[in-house]
């Protein structure tokens, strides 16, 4: 949790001034009894109406000053709390962007979102509350204890012991409830994940008529959350009554002690009244504090989750090498490269050796789950090779800065993701400063310009989140345009034409062949037609290289390649 403190740095002044003004206000409030004492002792005793008026006006004045102080305090604490949480939020958002694919796979996006939203909101509320009240209450309590000691040490001991017992109770309660609250938040994660999957999978769920089951499962998660909330709520609910009981038990004890002291003549009645007053002041503050503790434990639990996320270091260290992307395609070498996703798990691909000359076309083909995507994921360093090494333009990918490495690579994944915003904005993901001419050129190459120009507003046509308002094939072509506009050194097409009809696919391949800059191109495909013209073809089978060479070579000496080819061509289609 320590790692969150530094985000208060810019709000150091606010963090001090907020509670300070709160203390000032409290002090002014504490002066009121003195004023009243004077009114009674002097004003009333001498029947001096003028005096009474003057002191009543003084009370009003104290009220005005108090108002000023507390408004200032509220402002500073709101500013510190809001500023703090905005900073933390920004930091977490940035941090998430630096996590490697492996960490993202392990965490799941649901929890990232709860931490960025609901956890931080709770934390913000907790900070605001703490700054406003948390310092004031202990101050008043301590002050009252000290004052009590000046009256009578022995009687004051009752008060001190009561406060001590209370601190213990508060501590135990916090120890009990913080883990429970953390549990509540993680069950909320489950509810969130369910909600998200029900939105994303609405079509499939309905197609299978599974609405009722989904509802049941959601209700299960919802009920589990509810049960733990109620359980943890029941424990926190004891906080207030315990405080009340303890303080009043202390009061009774104080009265008894006081009575004996008065009986022996050590104390006066007035002194006992004063001690009792201090005790009730403590009670009032502690009850406020107890209310706050519940909120505070929640905030602490949430803060813990937020802080844990910040502590997750990316398992991937960024290098520092920065080189320019070559005009005529990058040189890619794989030396005995292999990748496994979990420690001790099986390799999803291994033992790949490849030397791809600049501007060459590499085809990758193989069965479902044979490791094609794993192979190409190592080149932009989405995952670090578990064995062997990968070099791009003569430099190990681990030595590049991410921007320099990924800047020269453009990937079109199997399931391309588009973002809410205009088509122009989406294409510009590939190249920030691309002008309309460049964009249109890329769209034309990607066979996307026809449908884009038919859309209302053309390039300015606004896509909804995930690009849901265009068809799957259109999404793929936009994703290809997004990759092409970058003029990459390496172009990776990961089965990215699966939703295209053959005519469009063929036209696309032709257009890419005729680009005026020549990227080294990796084409992952199921279709032999898409890769048969490649300079080298890698045939993968169950994570291992089953063959490498040109189409003709492979037909001759790779059994698996021949089978794949036959499955697509044999039954005499032509």
């Amino acid at each position, binding site marked *: 949790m320590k790692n969150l403190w530094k985000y208060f740095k810019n709000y150091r002044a606010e963090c001090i001034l907020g509670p300070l003004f709160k203390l000032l206000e409290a002090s002014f409030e504490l002066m009121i009894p003195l004023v009243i004492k004077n009114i009674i002792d002097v004003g009333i005793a001498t029947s001096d109406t003028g005096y009474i008026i003057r002191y009543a006006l003084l009370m009003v004045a104290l009220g005005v000053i108090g108002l000023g102080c507390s408004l200032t305090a509220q402002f500073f604490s709101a500013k510190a709390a809001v500023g703090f949480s905005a900073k933390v939020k920004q930091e977490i958002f940035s941090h998430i962007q630096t996590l490697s694919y492996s960490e993202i796979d392990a965490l799941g996006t649901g929890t990232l979102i709860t931490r960025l939203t609901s956890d931080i909101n709770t934390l913000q509320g907790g900070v605001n509350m703490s700054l406003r009240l948390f310092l004031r209450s202990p101050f008043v309590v301590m002050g009252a204890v000290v004052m009590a000691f000046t009256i009578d040490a022995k009687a004051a001991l009752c008060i001190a012991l009561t406060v001590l017992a209370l601190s213990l109770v508060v501590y135990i309660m916090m120890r009990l409830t913080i883990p429970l609250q953390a549990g509540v938040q993680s069950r909320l994660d489950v509810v969130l*994940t369910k909600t998200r999957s029900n939105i994303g999978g609405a079509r499939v769920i309905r197609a299978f008529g599974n609405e009722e089951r989904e509802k049941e499962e959601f209700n299960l998660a919802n009920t589990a959350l509810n049960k733990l909330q109620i359980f943890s709520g029941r424990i926190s609910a004891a906080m207030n009554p315990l405080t009340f009981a303890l303080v009043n038990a202390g009061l009774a004890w104080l009265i008894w002690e006081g009575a004996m002291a008065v009986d022996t003549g050590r104390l006066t009645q007035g002194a006992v009244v004063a001690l009792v007053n201090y005790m009730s002041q403590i009670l009032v503050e502690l009850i406020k504090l107890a209310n706050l503790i519940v909120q505070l434990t929640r905030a602490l639990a949430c803060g813990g989750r937020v802080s844990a996320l910040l502590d997750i270091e990316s398992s991937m260290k960024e290098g520092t090498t920065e080189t320019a992307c070559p005009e005529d395609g990058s040189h890619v070498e794989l030396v005995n490269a292999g990748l496994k996703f979990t420690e001790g798990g099986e390799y999803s691909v291994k033992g790949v050796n490849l030397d791809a000359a600049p501007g060459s076309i590499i085809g990758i083909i193989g069965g479902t789950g044979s490791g094609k995507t794993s192979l190409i994921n190592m080149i932009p360093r989405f995952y670090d090779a578990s064995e062997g090494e990968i070099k791009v333009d003569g430099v190990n990918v681990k030595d590049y800065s991410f921007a320099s490495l990924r800047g020269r690579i453009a990937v079109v994944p199997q399931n391309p993701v588009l973002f809410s915003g205009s088509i122009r904005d989406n294409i510009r993901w590939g190249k920030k400063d691309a002008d309309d001419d460049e964009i249109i050129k890329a769209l034309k190459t990607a066979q996307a310009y026809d449908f884009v120009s038919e859309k209302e507003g053309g390039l300015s046509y606004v896509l909804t989140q995930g690009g849901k308002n265009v068809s799957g094939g259109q999404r793929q072509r936009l994703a290809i345009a997004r990759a092409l506009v970058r003029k990459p050194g390496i172009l990776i097409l990961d089965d990215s034409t699966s939703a295209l009809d053959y005519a469009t696919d063929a036209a696309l391949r032709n257009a890419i062949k005729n680009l005026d800059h020549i990227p080294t191109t990796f084409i992952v495909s199921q279709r032999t037609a898409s890769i048969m013209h490649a300079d080298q073809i890698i045939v993968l089978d169950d994570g291992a290289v089953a063959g490498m060479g040109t189409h003709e070579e492979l037909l001759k000496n790779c059994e698996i390649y021949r089978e794949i080819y036959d499955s697509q061509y044999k039954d005499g289609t032509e």
Partner: protein
Amino acid sequence: MKKKQGQAEIIKKVLRYVRPYGVFLLISVVCAAISSLLALVMPILTGLAVDMIITKGQVDFDGILGVIKQMALCIAAISIAQWGTNACSNRLTYDTVRDIRRDAMEKLQKLPLAYNDKHPAGETVSRMIADVDQFADGLLLGFNQFFNGVITIVGTLVLMLMLNPLLTIAVVVITPLSFFVAGFIAKNTFKLFKRQSAVRGEQTALIEEMCSNVKTVQAFSYENEAISRFAEGNEVLKDVSLRATFFSSMTNPCTRFVNNIAYALVTFFGAILVVGGKLTVGGLSAFLSYANQYTKPFNEISGVITELQNAIACAGRVFELIEEEAEVPDAEDAAVLSGAKGIVDIENVNFSYTEDKELIKELNLHVDSGSRIAIVGPTGCGKTTLINLLMRFYDVNEGSIKVDGLDIRNISRKSLRSAYGMVLQETWLKPGTVRDNIRMGRPDATDEEVIAAAKASHAHSFIKQLKDGYDTVLGEGGGLLSQGQKQLLCIARIMLGMPPMLILDEATSSIDTRTELKIQDAFAKMMKGRTSFIVAHRLSTIKEADRILVMKDGNIIEQGTHTQLLAERGFYHKLYHSQWE
């Protein structure tokens, strides 16, 4: 667009949710009454005890012991009652919130898909998670403090009236002022809270988009842009939040100020009364202490009011979702389709997603039971739309679609949809085990049946290799499975269900052709006697079809068998040959 809901309207709806837990509300209120009233007795008891401690040698120990016993009883009763209040209001709040979430999910299942297609997922998620959470916080605080406050006010009022009616009137006249002040501030902060909620929703949508797709973000080195876009929105939210938080926190100091003024006035008038001999000093000091206790809850209540406002603003957003118009419900006399023969008639159908752009025009089609229909055409020709209409994800604008001679609008959705087995190109797997995913097609299937289906779809061999086999938990989006593996699972899903009609939209697009060849047999067996609609680019799948529909721009431009269409040398011919260029 519906009109914006007012606060009163939202509160009424909240109350409807609270009603089933009225018992807890009642216990909570009763307990609050007991604890607050007894708490007022405590100072009286203390006073009695103090009066028994006069001076050296004049202490009534027996009397004090008696008072202390009474105090102990009071303390015990108050503590238990307080715990009761808290526990009941917890229960009340969390149960209410659970019900609201349940209803929201219920609605989510009934919303027309157009809603999903139009609203960013993040926004809906924000309504169901963050907003409901904030609502719970507000409600809880409300219950915990509101009733206590009200009862304390009533109790002290009675005690003050007993002490001095005249001064009481002065207090009573002034304190409502604090409500006016609080009300004024509240009205303005409500707007700010609503705005905060809205800005937060936008931020959640961005978070949702950028964090769920962080892989793509990284692939394009878009991190910095994402961060600066987030920073922009974050600044706006910071401003709005600061204003909302600050303005709402003004309530407390302002009402306290009003109360302090009231206190000063009471002191002044009281002192004058004492000077005039109409009140004793002791009476004044007792009155002052009650006046203080009387005004304090006003502070708390107005503090609670701002919390409640935020809660209401949040509740409003959830209710907007819950009240979103659902799909036209099934007609009461909707037929239940069972053992469909699979005769499909599409008659004069017109359809468009948006009013301004026609998509499908005057579509007519008759499909015989058990026939295999392939649909081909360039991307964006309306294939997917046709499927949306067949499954009744969208209703036709004009014309009708009939299954076995029944208009599908007169068939219950569930029975219509479960008559189709659908495999889409975009695979969706639910977070859960592999087994759960396959069982979607038939929840009551035995393990043997699940495995048989997986074997038929050739998914068994890769499932076996997963860490926990069929019990492997797939994360959101299917985790580490490849696209092809996900498709195999989706195929296993319908192989298990064996519904009477099939829709295969690029069902094997990501599966390698060798595996596909192996599945073909299973597919062929499955399609036998089942009406099937197949969208595919692989002509091997299409060639076997009884009829091929060539679609372009929402119309069927050619239809016939493979040989017929090739002989026509039309669009299909061109499409077919492009493959070999």
